[in-house]
């Protein structure tokens, strides 16, 4: 039996040899190796990079862009590991807004303010709040934005209208938002939102003052026992107690089905959510959805993508050139917006007729104009390396309030202690 296996393996190898031969010949006949720019990205952001590659390769004959794509969940893990080891790093690495705080303090990334990048000179060309988030605690600019997510309130206009409600009833104030939810539930049995937790997230961001962090102040101390958190928790609790949320997690099957079937009437997210609604969640609901500004005239950012140049990059200058093309070239920025709903971070790309065009999916509403106005008024938010940890702790605290009826001040006080403990911040505070 073993002998037969051996023979089989030998036979397979022999059979594979002719297949390998052309590859060997091809390699031998190839001209001198091209310079290569290695870019790591995640879906769908990789599509924007793909759009830019032909123009970049025309600009740099002899340079080939190699794009390596990892899932959004795997990319930060892979990049942290690579930064830790200082090996296997690309020339240009993508990160989503959620992971920016974790990486901006990394000593393994170039400070883009320094030569040869001198990104400070370009600051006026980029949405200020997005650029602010790319700075680490030391002030170094290590991540540069390529798209942003101005927050919007998406809602089903048909459900609202048949419940006798107008858009203003939904976003005049948070109290009105809840009142509209009750009316909607009474009339249709539809839920106002997928999960009360989403409202907490939005309120936390919407009530931020310029330059403040969501969870930490600029000194890295937690801000959990502030009126902002109390209000966010209280609103989420009221929503849950009134039975206005469907208690489903965003991106789960129940959530997308709920939105598709009109069981969930509104969702607050970045402008990029329009593409998800239109492409796969509710493609048949043409004309039924609308985009509104957030309640109480708040402006918040949701998501967004960044690129960074590792110090170990072999082609930092080429990487910077490619990054500038992605981030600042109006044609490229608009192409990314048209293709994958990545809202332009470059101010110059936010102009033009494209933004005034009526959108059939939104019943002819020129929604892009609204998102642009929101983008201009979003305050700068300070990112912290402990944001992801604090987010976990705050969500756990809100679960205790929503599920077990714990008092909000007590839950927040405990959460703050836990953030201090988990972030090992007690020593620093002392």
């Amino acid at each position: 039996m073993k002998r037969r296996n051996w023979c089989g393996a030998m036979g397979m190898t022999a059979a594979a040899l002719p297949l390998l031969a052309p590859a060997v010949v091809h390699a031998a006949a190839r001209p001198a190796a091209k310079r290569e720019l290695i870019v790591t990205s995640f879906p769908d952001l990789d599509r924007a990079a793909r759009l830019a590659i032909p123009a970049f390769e025309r600009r740099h004959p002899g340079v080939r862009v190699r794009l390596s794509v990892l899932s959004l969940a795997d990319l930060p893990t892979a990049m942290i590991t690579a930064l830790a080891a200082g090996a296997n790093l690309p020339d240009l690495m993508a990160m989503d807004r959620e992971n920016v705080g974790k990486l901006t303090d990394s000593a393994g990334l170039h400070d883009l303010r320094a030569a040869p990048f001198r990104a400070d000179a370009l600051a006026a060309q980029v949405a200020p709040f997005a650029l602010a988030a790319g700075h680490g605690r030391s002030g170094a600019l290590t991540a540069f934005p390529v798209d942003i997510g101005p927050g919007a309130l998406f809602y089903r206009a048909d459900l609202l209208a048949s419940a006798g409600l107008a858009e203003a009833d939904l976003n005049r104030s948070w109290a009105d938002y809840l009142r509209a939810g009750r009316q909607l539930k009474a009339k249709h049995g539809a839920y106002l939102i997928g999960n009360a937790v989403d409202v907490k997230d939005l309120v936390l961001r919407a009530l931020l003052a310029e330059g403040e962090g969501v969870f930490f102040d600029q000194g890295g101390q937690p801000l959990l026992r502030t009126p902002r958190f109390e209000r966010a928790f209280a609103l989420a609790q009221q929503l849950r107690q009134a039975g206005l949320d469907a208690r489903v997690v965003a991106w789960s099957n129940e959530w997308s089905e709920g939105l598709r079937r009109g069981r969930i009437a509104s969702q607050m997210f970045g402008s990029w959510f329009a593409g998800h609604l239109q492409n796969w969640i509710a493609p048949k609901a043409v004309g039924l959805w609308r985009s509104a500004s957030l309640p109480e005239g708040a402006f918040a950012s949701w998501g967004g993508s960044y690129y960074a140049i590792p110090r170990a990059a072999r082609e930092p200058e080429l990487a910077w050139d490619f990054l500038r093309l992605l981030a600042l070239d109006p044609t490229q920025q608009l192409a990314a917006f048209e293709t994958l709903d990545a809202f332009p971070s470059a101010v110059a790309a936010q102009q033009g007729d494209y933004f005034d065009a009526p959108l059939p999916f939104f019943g002819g509403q020129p929604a892009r104009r609204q998102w642009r106005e929101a983008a201009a008024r979003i305050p700068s938010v300070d990112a912290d390396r402990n944001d992801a940890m604090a987010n976990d702790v705050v969500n756990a605290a809100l679960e205790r309030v929503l599920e077990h009826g714990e008092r909000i001040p007590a839950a927040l006080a405990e959460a703050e202690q836990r953030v201090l403990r988990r972030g090992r911040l007690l020593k620093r505070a002392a």
Partner: protein
Amino acid sequence: MKAALQKRWRQAQPYLFISPFFILFAVFGLFPLLFSIWLSLHSWDPAAGLGAMSWVALDNYRYALMDDDWFHQSLWTTLWIALLAGVPQHLVALPLAWWLHTAMGRWRNLVLGLYFLPFITSTVALSLVFTSLFSKDFGIVNSLLDTLFGWGGIDWRRPEYTKWMIAFVVFWRYLGWNTVLYLSALQTVPKDLLEAAELDGAGAWARFRHVMLPLLKPMAYFAVTLTLIGNLQLFEEPFILTGGTGGIDQGGRTTAMHLYRVAFTEGDFGTASAIAWLLFIVIAGSTWLNNRLLGERKEAA
């Protein structure tokens, strides 16, 4: 001189031939192991690079044991799921193997193969399928429970159900594996022992209880050890089923998941390494306990 060199070369040859294993083991086995001990004694944010490591001695262990209440909770969750998924695995696998052995005849291997199928299927794929099966509004489990008992709309993500859901998936996945183990042990039992017992008037139950079960003890020890080690390191199933967070109230956050989050969400590789070693101590302790309960005793032999 030449002869001496040749002799030395001859002596070195065996070491040269076995060196690939040792080189690979040193690079991919031993080094990470030792590095993680070293790491557990440091405070380190990996994104900052190797230069950012600072010595903290046993502080990470102290933090994990005294301050990290999520770690303590994760230990309970892990033990709970390990028992909930592990005990039924053996209680069902043993009779199942006996039934396959005695009643299935030539269909035995086919039926065994069917039970074994979940074991060789990707955990991630299985967990994703189960996520759909346990869906609150559109899942087949709820529609079945609704049809059979009139229990509608159970939200399986709620903390009181999370552990049960994970334990069920783990039980279902490893049942076939344990059945194979027990069946292979049953097949080695000499038939004449059973026939002798039958001649002595022992019924089916008596033959199983007094002849088979004692002979299966070594295999039971082996199988329970594997279950203990596997279940205490549980990661993929709870990770996918709870969307990577551990679920509401962290009801499904196992210790392996917790240390992954400490490392990659909180960026604290030092504490994560310390937790990994503490988990190792728990696993080693339970294996020792299992050895005391089920293992062969030298003095008894």
